């Protein structure tokens, strides 16, 4: 494998890892606030559809982005109502959200576009175009550094750079602001937050709203950046892989970057090399596809460092009287 191939693989790992990263950070805000979210898949799908549909109709990727975030937000509101206001089972609500998105997107897509549950192909301004970083063309012939700059760092859509910027931002918000401290507290011990006179309900709604925005970005990137339009079930389990990455990263932003890029790289490798012959064993493509899930189970089992979720996760908060 030569250097150029490695760069190409890493480049496609960044592309494939970006929706996972955005969805993973989305899940991080919700779960750190004590709201389990297995509905990331559904929110991404809803965002992918609405961004694709609006971008197709208006010809503007930016309007698509607004619609995508709106789509994800509508499901976030459902999940928030179920798990915060009605104190229902958050896991059941997540399952419902996923099915709602899976059925609703196809139903509306068919009704609006009559193309068998997809949106029209997007082109031009309806997609987020790759951005060439300053000076990338000039240095493209410089060995190693120039290649890395031109082929790996430059040439992604704005959403990729936003996703990467979200990592330090998330870290800063969670660990360096008062809001972040309260958010983490409400996921570990909501009684203490309540005692301090801060509204648990409002904090949790704020957290799931951030989840809505980020999963909206993730879905929008799928339909208008990575692909050119929405197709039925286009998230293809990415919401669950993001959930796996979140556990893998033990609910922390910087490891989340590592985990999602690792899973992105795995996908890039299995796209490029369907079968990997290691000499001793031949790894089939199906194994490569299952690796993120297997790794998550191993991590959950606590054989390689234990993953401990936020303590109040999944429990509705009942105010004491």
């Amino acid at each position, binding site marked *: 494998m030569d250097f150029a191939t490695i760069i190409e693989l890493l480049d496609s790992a960044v592309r494939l890892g970006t929706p996972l990263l955005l969805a993973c950070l989305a899940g991080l805000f919700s779960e750190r606030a004590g709201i389990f979210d*297995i509905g990331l898949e559904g929110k991404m799908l809803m965002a992918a559809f609405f961004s694709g549909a609006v971008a197709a109709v208006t010809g503007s990727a930016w309007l698509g982005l607004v619609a995508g975030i709106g789509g994800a937000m509508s499901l976030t509101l459902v999940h928030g109502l179920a798990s915060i206001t009605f104190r229902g089972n958050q896991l059941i609500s997540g399952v419902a*959200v996923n*099915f709602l998105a899976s059925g609703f997107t196809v139903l509306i897509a068919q009704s609006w576009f009559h193309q068998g*549950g997809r949106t029209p192909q997007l082109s031009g301004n309806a997609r987020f175009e790759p951005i060439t970083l300053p000076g990338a063309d000039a240095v493209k012939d410089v060995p190693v550094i120039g290649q890395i700059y031109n082929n790996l760092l430059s040439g992604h859509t704005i959403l990729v750079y936003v996703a990467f910027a979200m990592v330090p931002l998330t870290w800063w918000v969670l660990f360096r602001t008062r809001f972040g401290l309260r958010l983490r507290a409400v996921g570990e011990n909501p009684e203490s937050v309540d005692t301090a006179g801060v509204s648990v309900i409002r904090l949790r709604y704020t957290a799931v709203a951030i989840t809505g925005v980020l999963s909206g970005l993730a879905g929008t990137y799928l339909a208008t950046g990575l692909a050119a339009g929405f197709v039925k079930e286009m998230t293809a389990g990415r919401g669950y892989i993001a959930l796996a990455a979140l556990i893998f990263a033990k609910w922390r932003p910087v490891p989340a970057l590592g985990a999602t890029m690792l899973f992105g790289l795995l996908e890039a490798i299995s796209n490029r090399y369907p079968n990997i012959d290691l000499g001793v064993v031949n790894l089939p493509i199906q194994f490569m596809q299952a690796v993120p*899930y297997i790794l998550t*189970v191993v991590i959950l*089992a606590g054989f390689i460092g234990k993953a401990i979720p936020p303590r109040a996760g999944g429990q509705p908060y009942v105010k004491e009287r």
Partner: protein
Amino acid sequence: MEKTPKWIDVGLIPLLNLLIAFVISGIVVLLIGENPVQAIKVMVDGALGSPYGWGYTLFYATNFIFTGLAVAVAYHASQFNIGGEGQATLGGLGVALVCLAFPWPHWSIALLAAMIGGALFGAAWAAIPAYLQAKRGSHIVITTIMFNFIGASLLNYMLVNVLRPRGSMDPATARFANSTHLPTFHDMPLIGQFFGKSVPANISFFIAVLACFLVWGLIWRTRLGYAIRAFGRSESAARYAGISPVKIVMAAMLISGGLAGLMAINNVMGTGHRLVLNSVEGAGFIGIAVALMGRNHPFGVFLAALLFGFLYQGGGELALETTIPRELITVIQALVILFTGAFDNMLRAPIESFFVARSKAKKEA
């Protein structure tokens, strides 16, 4: 403490929730420019209007009874088994291996062996998440989700690389021998005259009904069932009473996985006569809606499975006769899960307080 009458808990509230789910679905149908009344008519005609329709409705219901019971049994032990899909997938593999392994002389023997094969494979797929939950505290919801994906990959590998007959391009097993084909409703005495040859409902339906009775007996009439329910209500109380949490979680999940795996006698052995990719078609997930709707009681599961069988078959007819895609059923399914599951308190809290207040007022009067 005042208690609300039972008919409200198991009758009125689920029905009201179902009604809301249907009303919203009707609004969705209106939004996409179709007539909801017409849609209901097409669904009822298609699913219940002919023996042909009933044959399909009961065929789908058979799948959902198995997966619904699977979710219900685990739920009694307060385990949310979201892995019915993967367990049923593996059950299919078990059934296919049994059917292909041996030239079975008669379908009845083959069926018994296939039931053991399907249940064992399904239970095995539930065993690892169950063990990890019981011994290492790994959240069963996440591990069973992961096992759904791992199961799909495993089946894909088995079909493409191992079980595919030489020279075939299809990722599917060889056809099962004729001697393993189960009798359909058409082949049965008494009812056979009503059903046509193409009807997929088969003897598995009666096995599913039998499974309802057995699960009822297990949960409410055996020592193990008592332990499962006690554990599900309060883990600490059960532990104090000498009930081993590891044993209960394992037992409940193995039974649950076995029931999900048993589904394969219907969809793989009963009609497909070979194992293909994605033969479960989401039935494992529908089991969640069925168990919620049926309030985890086998009789409720039976009724809810019939309802979803009707929706599934009716939805298929809808896609044929109108421009409404069959994904409408996914939306209805989601709304049923949402309202009977996650939004349950929305109606329950006000209705219960209304009845408590009324019975108090009566006493005082």
